[in-house]
């Protein structure tokens, strides 16, 4: 159930970053996709669910780990997070599709289907990034 540990949800929820604007062609803001540029657009989400969906997985993980820590002690979330980190490191380069098999098995996503698996499959996205730029962004050089 998703309602465990509400107190931990208040304490450890993920901080809000700005709603990123889409930089379209020629380096200016993509008016068609994200509307006219205004401070309000940058700070506030355009849809009621945008913020909660962006951080949903992170919030769930925080809540679950916090509950686990309260029940079983610090070692339990520590061990799990160590495994997650190890599984996250064995991916392909950013512009290629990785299967996330180990990570999915650890998280239990291999036994369930939700909207993340049906809608907007990244393997079939229409836009492909430039490999060099994507690697530079991932390494923090950009």
């Amino acid at each position, binding site marked *: *159930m*998703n309602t465990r540990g509400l107190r931990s949800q208040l304490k450890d929820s993920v901080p809000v970053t700005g709603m990123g604007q*889409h*930089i*379209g*062609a020629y*380096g200016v803001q993509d008016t*068609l*996709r*994200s*509307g006219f540029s205004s401070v309000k*657009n940058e700070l506030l*989400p*355009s*849809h*009621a*669910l*945008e913020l*909660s*969906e962006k951080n*949903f997985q992170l919030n769930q993980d925080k809540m679950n780990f916090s509950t686990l820590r309260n029940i079983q002690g610090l070692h339990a979330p520590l061990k799990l997070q160590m495994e997650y980190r190890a599984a996250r490191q064995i991916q392909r380069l*950013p*512009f290629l*599709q990785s299967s996330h098999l180990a990570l999915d098995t650890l998280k239990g996503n291999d*036994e*369930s*289907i*939700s*909207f*993340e*698996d*049906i*809608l*907007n*499959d*990244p393997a079939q*996205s229409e*836009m*492909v*990034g*430039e*490999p060099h*730029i*994507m690697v530079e*962004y991932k390494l923090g050089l*950009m």
Partner: protein
Amino acid sequence: MALSNVVETPASGFNFENVSRNVALKGLLEGGHTKAPKPMKTGTTIAGLVCKDGVVLGADTRATSGEVVADKMCAKIHYISPNMYCCGAGTAADTEKTTDLLSSNLTIFSMNSGRNPRVVMAVNILQDMLFRYRGQIGASLILGGVDCTGNHLYTVGPYGSIDNVPYLAMGSGDLAALGILEDRFKPNMELEEAKELVRDAIHSGIMSDLASGNNIDICVITKQGVDYIRPYQESEYKDKRQRRYKYRPGTTSILTEKIVPLELEVVQETVQRMDTA
């Protein structure tokens, strides 16, 4: 084509890129007196009750889109698992997709564990999913099934609220249907009596509500199996359109016949050889 402005692969799941554009477009359209298209709703009467041997679910078959009947033979009772069926009211696409996802998840679970899923599991999955999306998924569902713990009937609202009761009605025609159910429901009814009661409840919903109509579907779930009767009762106001507008030869009777031969004389004759090699 590789774009140089894409720095990360887009996240999967819901994409909110077009929301502000849609809001702006809607403002433009309304100002110009055109209406944006409305999603297809199943504005419905659905009902269910628990009887002695199992669960009986019933639904009408009309789907509306604004003031127009979009589908006259809509199937509102969705398959979840061999022992569970779900009636859906609200936005048609949302109920379809939600019940499909639920059915897939339960199939994976039953393949993994080798057991038949229980009704409470389905209800919990639905509740989590609908609450996550804070009611933006417009699906009010009546879930009924028979498992090892007995016969169950649950309702799940669009915000994730659940209720476990012996008889239920949902949808825009629920008040009319609930009146019939409240009047004649008794615990541990016989199967035939239960089917008649559900039929009467849906019928009263159809009569009293504009958004419900056409045929009545009934689904009976028992320990032995499922009987999905579609349609249980057809509406008296069936379509009498012809579909074929060609007349049979002989429809018009021939009164007189007069044949005038056309006299032709050969003026010029040319022969051209065809190359058939």
